[in-house]
């Protein structure tokens, strides 16, 4: 089975802090994605990556950056956390040539 893990299930940070969310997948998938999920808004794509050191902006990249130094790991970075970044963050991966994505358990981030 595909396994996508995220470094934290719950995280509380203060406004202005730099926040790192880590995602690791163990199925050698080329594609990795970061979403945020908010009530009434569904899943929105922040960034994605089709290869190591490659990144593409999604629909809502503002206030976020990403890093993909190794194939199995995709990091989401909040350079200066703000309260409107309080959300559930979901990481996903998929193999090249396939469209289905496999999700991690999510990180619920609260910025106070």
């Amino acid at each position, binding site marked *: 089975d595909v396994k996508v893990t995220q470094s934290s299930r719950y995280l509380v940070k203060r406004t202005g802090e730099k926040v790192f969310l880590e995602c690791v997948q163990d199925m050698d998938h080329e594609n990795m994605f970061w979403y945020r999920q908010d009530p009434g808004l*569904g*899943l929105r794509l922040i960034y994605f990556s089709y290869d190591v050191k490659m990144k593409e902006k999604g629909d809502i990249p503002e206030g976020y950056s990403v890093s993909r130094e190794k194939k199995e790991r995709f990091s989401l970075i909040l350079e200066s956390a703000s309260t409107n970044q309080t959300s559930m963050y*979901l990481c996903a991966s998929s193999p090249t040539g396939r*469209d*289905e994505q496999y999700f991690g358990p999510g990180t619920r981030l609260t910025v106070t």
Partner: protein
Amino acid sequence: GESVGLHLPTLSVQEGDNSIINCAYSNSASDYFIWYKQESGKGPQFIIDIRSNMDKRQGQRVTVLLNKTVKHLSLQIAATQPGDSAVYFCAEKRPGTALIFGKGTTLSVSS
């Protein structure tokens, strides 16, 4: 704008009944559709998918139907169980783009 949506935000059924969760999409160029189940506190879990060259696909207790004429997608769950209680999302994909998710339908199963 273009979007993927579900007809009803909530659906309540009795244990043992069949459930039908609906989804409408707006872009006729979409060629791939997928259903996810998300239980409380967990990430979305892949249920079943279908490509636009098919009208129907069956899995274990689940069936996805695609009606391209009216741009409608449905997920049927047979003999619904309490463990099926969750939020169900549909998503569509056009060639060269990422998945676009609907907002979800909450399925509640009472015994």
